[in-house]
């Protein structure tokens, strides 16, 4: 428990520094007022709105004000939407998390069988084919994959809907788009990991006892080669959410990625802060969970 407590305590300074950095970046990047007013607004109009929003205060006053409110659970109000920023984020969070989890499932679903296959057929045509495919998968930008998938599987052969998030069919193309790069990376990792485990003495022993090959692979090799895979899932999950920004735009997916994009374009400080905060929190939680899964998978790992 000591480990958990220490990790949780470390979160607080990290988040504080994070809010400061994000606040400073958005502050420097632009001024929301000029984008909120109609085009024929005058300098006087801008001054009036700036004052009404409290944006004429110096940086440190604005930041402390923001921080004070945040500690009380108030993440500020979006200039664009005129609604509490946190509410805007939480109502879209489920869509992004669902997409990310689906993409993760796609990645696992593709990479584990392919990785094991490549390892077992090491240095054969199959192995080269799998390695080749994963290089290509990693190299393709996901917005391009998305547009191509729409073109082929929604326009030329209308099997799936083009965009939106209304039914389970709508999940297929975005999940594949987001999951492909991760699948490619994980395939190579699974392959390497299986190759390493397969050389271990306990696997040789199992084989020499005359156990069936499927049991050797399924019981001894598979589980033990999962540890690095779990690591990469933990590391990649925040990146998956980052990738969701692009994929959500291509597929009109109503998640936080698109909200973030618009918020940055319009210098909507409160929303940017709230999203970065939530993503940071998710990252921290996922990392903790990864650590715990480690322990379950490999009882030799101890935390002190």
């Amino acid at each position: 428990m000591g480990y958990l407590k220490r990790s949780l305590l470390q979160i607080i300074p990290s988040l504080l520094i994070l809010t400061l950095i994000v606040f400073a970046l958005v502050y420097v990047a632009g001024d929301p007022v000029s984008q909120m007013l109609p085009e024929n607004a005058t300098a006087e109009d801008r001054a009036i709105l700036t004052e009404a929003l409290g944006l004429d205060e110096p940086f440190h006053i604005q930041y402390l004000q923001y921080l004070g409110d945040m500690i009380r659970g108030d993440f500020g109000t979006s200039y664009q939407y005129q609604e509490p920023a946190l509410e805007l984020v939480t109502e879209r969070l489920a869509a992004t998390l669902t997409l990310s989890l689906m993409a993760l499932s796609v990645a696992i679903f593709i990479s584990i069988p392919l990785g094991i296959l490549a390892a077992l057929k090491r240095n054969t045509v199959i192995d080269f084919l799998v390695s080749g495919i994963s290089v290509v998968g990693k190299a393709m930008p996901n917005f391009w994959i998305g547009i191509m998938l729409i073109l082929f599987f929604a326009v030329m052969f209308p099997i799936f809907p083009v965009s939106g998030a209304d039914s389970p069919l709508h999940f297929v193309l975005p999940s594949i788009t987001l999951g492909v790069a991760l699948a490619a990376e994980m395939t190579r990792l699974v392959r390497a990991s299986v190759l390493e485990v397969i050389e271990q003495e306990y696997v040789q022993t199992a084989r020499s006892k005359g156990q069936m090959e499927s049991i050797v692979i399924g019981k001894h090799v598979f589980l033990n080669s999962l540890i690095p895979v779990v690591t990469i899932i933990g590391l990649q999950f925040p990146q998956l959410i980052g990738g969701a920004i692009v994929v959500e735009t291509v597929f009109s997916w109503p998640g936080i990625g698109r909200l973030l994009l618009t918020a940055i374009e319009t210098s909507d400080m409160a929303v940017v802060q709230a999203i970065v905060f939530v993503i940071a929190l998710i990252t921290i939680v996922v990392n903790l969970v990864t650590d715990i899964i480690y322990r379950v998978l490999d009882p030799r790992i101890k935390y002190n």
Partner: protein
Amino acid sequence: MKKLSFLSILLITVLLISACSFSDPDEPSTEGEEASGYELITVANPADITTLDPHNNSVITTSAVLVNMYSKLIQRDASGEIIPDLATNWEKVDDVTWEFELEEDVTFHNGDAFTAEDVKFSLERVATDTTLQQNSTFREIDHVEVVDEHTVRVVTGEPDPQLLSRLSTPAASILPANHFEEVGADEFFDNPVGTGPYQFSAWERDDHVELVKYEDYFVEEPKWETVHFAVVPEDSTRVSELLTDGVDVAFNIPTADMERIDENEGTHVALAPIQRVIQLWLSTEEGATTADPAVREAIDLAIDNQVIIDEILLGSATATRTHVTPGNFGADESLYDTYLYDPERAKEILAEAGYKDGVTVEISVNNYYTEMAEVVVGMLDEVGITADIELIEQSQFADRLFNEDLDEGVFVGWGNDMFDGSILELFKEDNVTSYSNEEVEALLDEAAYNMNEEERAAQYQEVQQIFAEERPVVYLFQLEGRYGVNDRIDYTPRLDELYYVDEITLSE
């Protein structure tokens, strides 16, 4: 073997998903009655609406949706003419007072009767609350007097020749006073009501807004049962939705897809001029290369407007030498649909002005217009003007523009929400280009308060002629809105880029 089982699992999963019959919310059930075709219309916009509050919005894609829910006293028709909405008649009582007679027997979507009190409440709300984005448009209004239940007087602080323009913008929407004050702004906009042809049904954030027919609309029975404004940010996805009949209208399609949409069976492209004029602002501040009128003239003559229109916009724009294009008050049509291009003369002018080694100009541009700006740079280079482009991301661009922190040339696209010559005030004293001309100041000052329309139009036309001569800004062209449209409907886009859904009908 492993690969085989993997494939079979994939196949089974896909089959399972397809087998589950999920009802598509885009297709309302029409069981038991014959479909008329007017069940549902879907319009795809690149951006979601930002708010349901018409007084706190300055984004056209949001206004384009809200105009179907709320009415105003007066409105503009497709060509820009002011026509009645909730007001049947209006007249000027004196220079600061306008009287409006209101429609009787109008109800809001919640059943409340519409009266003069609602007009007073709505206009005074936007005119007095400085936190509202449209406050700047209505600050001229001093107060609104209720004469009787169906007559109001709008009183301005100073004579305001633009009052009718202001009152016909979507931001002058009328809200129900009693209901609004009873529930408060937050609750009101959770479930807003207006007097428009369609009433609010749902807003799925970043997905779609759904409006449904309001049977008691005071003008006539609205045509469509349900209206969806879908949000499809990615251009190519919006086009794909159109090609697969997912949407009826797709706004802002890329020029590269125009041919594909026209050639596809069942869709076509509709073009219409919009208020946005692409222009190059040139600094006249001392020390700037462009402070020399000869350099500004050479820049104007070096640019072949039509080539940019034909090559980049595939014809979807009209060359202009003024910002006040037809359909706007005070337009000088002699400066529209024309441009100056004479590279040889440009070279001569530069030589006569003593620029033997050429001229260097820096131009700021935001990410929307980079491609056009690059072509302009090439054209300037032909006559010996070396232009360097500074590409600035949009949110920073707006900020730096108003802080006058951009290069001597600023490449922008600018609209005109008020449909009025007063947009020329962009180049009034202390403007971004430092342009200063006493005659222009005097004309603009007078026009701002001149209640004589004829005189006022002449004043703006004179300013346009002076600008064409002195060139604090080189106007290039007026853009056209590009819409992909399903052949099943008949849709003519509007100058103001708003969708009045009831103007859209099924094709014959």
